[in-house]
């Protein structure tokens, strides 16, 4: 059984059918790409998994559990963390505090105890872990900086680090390299691969741009107008006529 299974998922916004009977599966340990032209419905898939929308029809299950019965704040408890296309950071918090919110559900101290000033040991332990993670990313000097003032590319890395703090099993990344230059894109790709291996994660990656997808994905699902038009390895997908048709006018780059 696959880790994430999406079956016959259909979503409507007013008269617009954003997803039309979409089915695909993500095997544990893989990096899977979900690609397609702008407006194909990729972010909508993530928002349905996050439970922000209620689908018109279909099923989503994670490790055999029905996701559609959950509320948005319960999804992470099951082991699914995500990033957002337009950044989901808390812009007026420091880098360190943003990372600590990533650890939110793992705090064991009760709110009453926290109000009385207890639970300092836990707070310090998580803080140290967050600092270590920043150290690895070379972002340690920025730990006290307010996130909203940092360059966009840096913020993308911090958002990914925050998702890692959540200790999830499945990572949903919505256009992690959007707005990045080639060097940053390269670095992000390497980083995603490395954390997948080290943390034993599974990654579902939405990308509009093909170069990253071809570089790191082991399997690719292609969407167009809310439907799956192709699925396979990056090489297979790249030469699929339907995919080339969908991306017509947009350059399909060969990595």
């Amino acid at each position: 059984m696959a880790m994430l299974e999406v079956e016959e998922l259909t979503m409507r916004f007013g008269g617009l059918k954003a997803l039309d009977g979409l089915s695909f599966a993500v095997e544990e340990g893989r990096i899977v790409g979900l690609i397609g032209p702008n407006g194909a419905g990729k972010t909508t898939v993530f928002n349905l998994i996050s439970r922000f929308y209620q689908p018109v029809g279909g099923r989503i299950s994670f490790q055999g559990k029905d996701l559609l019965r959950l509320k948005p704040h319960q999804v992470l408890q099951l082991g699914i963390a995500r990033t957002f296309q337009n950044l989901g950071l808390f812009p007026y918090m420091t880098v360190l505090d943003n990372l600590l919110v990533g650890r939110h559900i793992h705090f064991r101290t009760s709110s009453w105890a926290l109000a009385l000033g207890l639970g300092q040991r836990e707070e310090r332990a998580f803080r140290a872990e967050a600092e270590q993670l920043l150290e690895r990313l070379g972002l340690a000097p920025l730990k006290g900086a307010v996130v909203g003032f940092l360059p966009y590319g840096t913020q993308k890395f911090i958002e990914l680090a925050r998702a890692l703090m959540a200790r999830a099993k499945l990572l949903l990344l919505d256009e992690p390299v959007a707005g990045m230059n080639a060097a940053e894109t390269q670095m992000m790709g390497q980083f995603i691969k490395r954390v997948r291996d080290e943390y034993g994660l599974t990654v579902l990656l939405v990308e509009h741009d093909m170069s990253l997808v071809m570089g790191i994905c082991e399997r690719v699902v292609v969407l167009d107008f809310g439907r799956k038009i192709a699925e396979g390895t990056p090489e297979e997908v790249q030469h699929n006529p339907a995919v080339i048709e969908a991306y017509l006018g947009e350059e399909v780059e060969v990595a």
Partner: protein
Amino acid sequence: MRRFILWSGALCLLALAPLFLRSYTLYILNMAGVYLVATLGLNLLTGYTGQLSIGHAGFLAIGAYAGALLPAKLAVPFWLSIPLAGIISGLAGFILLIPALRLTAIYLAIATLGFGAAVAEILPRWTAVTGGYQGMKVPKAAFLGLTLDSDVKLYYLALIIVILMILLARNIVGSKLGRAFVAIRDQERAAQALGISLTKYKASAFFISAFYTGIAGALYSFVVGYISPGEFDLAKSLLIFMMMALGGMGSIPGSVVGAVFLTFLPHWLSGFRGLQQFIYGAALVLVVIFAPYGIWGFVRRWTMPDKLQRLPRPLRAVVEFVRG
């Protein structure tokens, strides 16, 4: 270590203040303490969690009447009546959770306005308990055989409450609780995706905020000695809001500065008869123009320029409200 010395010095100064100050000044300081606690409460809700309220006088009233009625009618000991007043007011705070979970920022503001108005309407009509429009005399606070019958004694009560409430606020803001509040304020979706339940944390914010303001109300009743429904009107809600906004939203020192400043301002201006309202208004406009992050943000800009990036932010909901 330097901080420790600084704080002990400040504490000594505050503890010795009654030796140097007139009774009248102490009375105003006590009122500043009342508003400080209420402003902290509003700041935790509006400044930190982003839930706009312009009806906090309602909670101040509930706390004031609970603080006065519990000892007067039910013989509750006074040391217990203050926290109880906070809890009763805190529970009343859950009423506002319903609009907060359903409506947008502007409609929540209107709902809080309605809440404040409703409390102000109910109090005078509930004559049997509240004494109606004339109001009621508040029994003297007594503690271990000591009757708090002077401004000096009340000053120490206010001081202790203020310190405890500031420490509590610091713990809240510096923990996962405070981070969840700010997360909800700035990115509701991302907060949810990180496992933060909007229902749970908005409920906490409303309870804590109303709890603070209820405590402030109970202290108010003991400091003033006589309460009547007319005092808890929209003007009072707006006053608390101004204290928070002027001091600095999302900042504890800001609340302290804002509450003390706006409590003393009318007294400093009492010499300028006739011009008082004008100066008051002009001062507010000046602060809004030159210190958009509140007085505390303005102070930090001059004292710690390198930390400019950590200024508390003005509230998005307010900005949206003003822009329409």
